[in-house]
């Protein structure tokens, strides 16, 4: 019986000739990522070794990556002390794939892993972050786990008792209209199948539209697959993956794509034609409350955010810069922009985007998660409305349960910043 990409990767990682959905396996981990929550992982890791008389050593430090992004620079004494504790652990365990708070090599974990070539097709990647699904964009099987599970991975190098998930195939055809793109596609899909439509399942993306999509766009759709509950989102590796790995991520040596068998068994096949897709907006307070833009156009917005592991990449900033060039952010609206990594920030500086943003009145912040999770920078006031290119709009997500968060693409965010109300960028687009 044929296998899906996830089944093939899990079979290889578990030393089996074949597996199928529902089998229980113990896959070896190729890459294990944590961010600030490494502080909790360390705590649980030491707990595992307590009273065993054994040295708590990570199974393979070259396969562990730790990145500070959630609260950078530290917003409190507590965070600063946790970050200090993690730095000491990183030094003691000689973890090299560590990215501290820096303007050159720092940034959001889900951008740092791909841009440094840490993720490759066929890998099993786990991360103590639900958006670890992002890395399926490079043909890997990548999923989020909790801190204790990660402590177990640090100890053993494998994930215990994993049930092989079933796969949903999503076939995407058609050409996007101008100012419509990957973010609109994934919001549309989540709206269609619901926030739990893919719970415990993998989404495998196929079709000519995906073939033509840049790795940056693929990272968007895999990133948000988890908002439909998916364990992992996967784009099978192809020529674009190889281009990205060689040209942008500096990967040398052999890279092998893992492709699904012709007779792979899918639980469900969903076809989407994007040629008539319009900009999509996820309305408060669930990500599957998705509406075509005309239903919410004109809604007054207090804060616009462009950034995050979903839409803080160079092409996202390029679209925003194009729309904002020579214009001004509306007087009653604040606009905050967070490039996803130091590398992207520097590229945006070189291309002049940062200058355009600032001239328009936007505030360009340091790379990191910023207001996405409502910890510091850009919290909302009572009854305020935010329009954001991030991935979650749960109650309280941007730091205030009495506020509202709408999710959109970078083009919608930029067009709306000028008007100060939710605005369709495709209206009047040439």
């Amino acid at each position, binding site marked *: 019986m044929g296998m899906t990409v996830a089944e093939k990767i899990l079979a290889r990682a578990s030393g089996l000739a074949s597996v199928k959905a529902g089998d*229980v396996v113990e896959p070896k981990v190729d890459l294990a990522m944590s961010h*600030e*929550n490494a*502080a*909790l992982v360390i*705590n*649980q890791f030491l*707990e*595992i*070794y307590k009273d*065993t008389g*054994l040295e708590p050593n990570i199974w393979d430090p070259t396969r562990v990556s730790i990145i500070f992004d*959630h*609260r950078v620079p530290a*917003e*409190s004494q*507590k*965070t600063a002390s*946790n970050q200090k504790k993690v730095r000491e652990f990183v030094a003691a365990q000689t973890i090299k794939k560590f990215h501290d708070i820096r303007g050159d090599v720092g940034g959001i974990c889900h951008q740092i892993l791909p841009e440094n070539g840490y993720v490759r097709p066929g890998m099993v990647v786990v*991360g*103590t*972050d*639900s958006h*670890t699904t992002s890395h399926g964009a490079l043909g890997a099987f990548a999923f*989020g*786990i*909790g*801190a*204790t*599970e990660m*402590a*177990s991975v640090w*100890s*053993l190098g494998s994930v*215990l*008792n*994993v*049930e092989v998930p079933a796969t949903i195939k999503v076939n995407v055809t058609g050409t996007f209209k101008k100012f419509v793109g990957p973010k609109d596609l994934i919001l549309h899909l989540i709206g269609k199948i619901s*926030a*739990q439509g893919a*719970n*415990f399942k993998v989404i495998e993306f196929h079709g000519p539209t995906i073939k033509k999509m840049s790795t940056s766009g693929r990272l968007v759709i895999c990133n948000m697959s988890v908002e439909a*509950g998916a*364990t992992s989102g996967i784009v099978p590796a192809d020529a674009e993956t190889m281009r990205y790995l060689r040209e942008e991520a500096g990967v040398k040596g052999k890279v092998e794509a893992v492709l699904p068998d012709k007779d792979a068994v899918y639980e469900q096949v969903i076809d989407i034609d994007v040629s008539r897709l319009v900009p999509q907006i996820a309305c408060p307070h*669930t990500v599957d409350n998705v509406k075509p833009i005309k239903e919410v156009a004109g809604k007054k917005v207090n804060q616009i955010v462009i950034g995050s592991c979903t839409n803080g990449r160079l092409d996202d900033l390029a679209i925003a810069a194009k729309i904002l060039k020579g214009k001004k952010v509306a007087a009653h609206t604040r606009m905050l922009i967070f490039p996803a990594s130091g590398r992207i920030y520097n590229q945006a500086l070189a291309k002049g985007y940062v200058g355009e943003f600032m001239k328009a009145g936007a505030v360009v912040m340091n790379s990191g998660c910023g207001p996405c*999770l*409502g*910890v510091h920078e850009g919290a909302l006031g009572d009854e305020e409305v935010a329009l954001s290119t991030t991935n*979650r709009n*749960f*109650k*309280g*997500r941007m*730091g205030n*349960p009495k506020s509202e968060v709408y999710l959109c693409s970078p083009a919608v965010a930029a067009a709306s910043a000028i008007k100060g109300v939710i605005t369709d960028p495709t209206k009047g687009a040439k």
Partner: protein
Amino acid sequence: MAQVAYVLGDDISTDVIYPGRYMATVLPTETPQYAFADIAELNGKLKAKQIAPGSVLLGGKNFGCGSSREQAVSTLKGHELIIVANDFARIFLQNSINLGLRTISCPGVEAAVGDDLEITETTLTNKTTGKTYAVVPLPSARRAIVDAGGLIAYTRKRVMERAGGQKK
């Protein structure tokens, strides 16, 4: 017998269970104070110990959706609550099993505050309404972790076995 202490709706996210702004607090001993911090009534009752250990929080579908933050589980475990819901989001369920928070997946369950529930491996009976519902068993793959008393104990056993094997 377990009593329903509070009823929540569908899609209760980890941001609602444990808001992101408290994520700098990581230790399981310190997280319980922030449980449902943005639902003042529930948070207040928990902090004032007006909800007894072993009480039930009732959710709808997709309980625990959102982030992988383990604080969302340790905060509930700290109050020794039982979570009954139609179903759970994957990472939350996994974290619950790992940390020993009791989660009961029970599609279609209906109950109100004050109802007494009798929960077995396979059924949930609402003694107040007299209705019985089927309980979805835990993913079989994860049973071994529950039986070992959580993932820390389970992994410790494996680490010890490995060390023993190397010595030989």
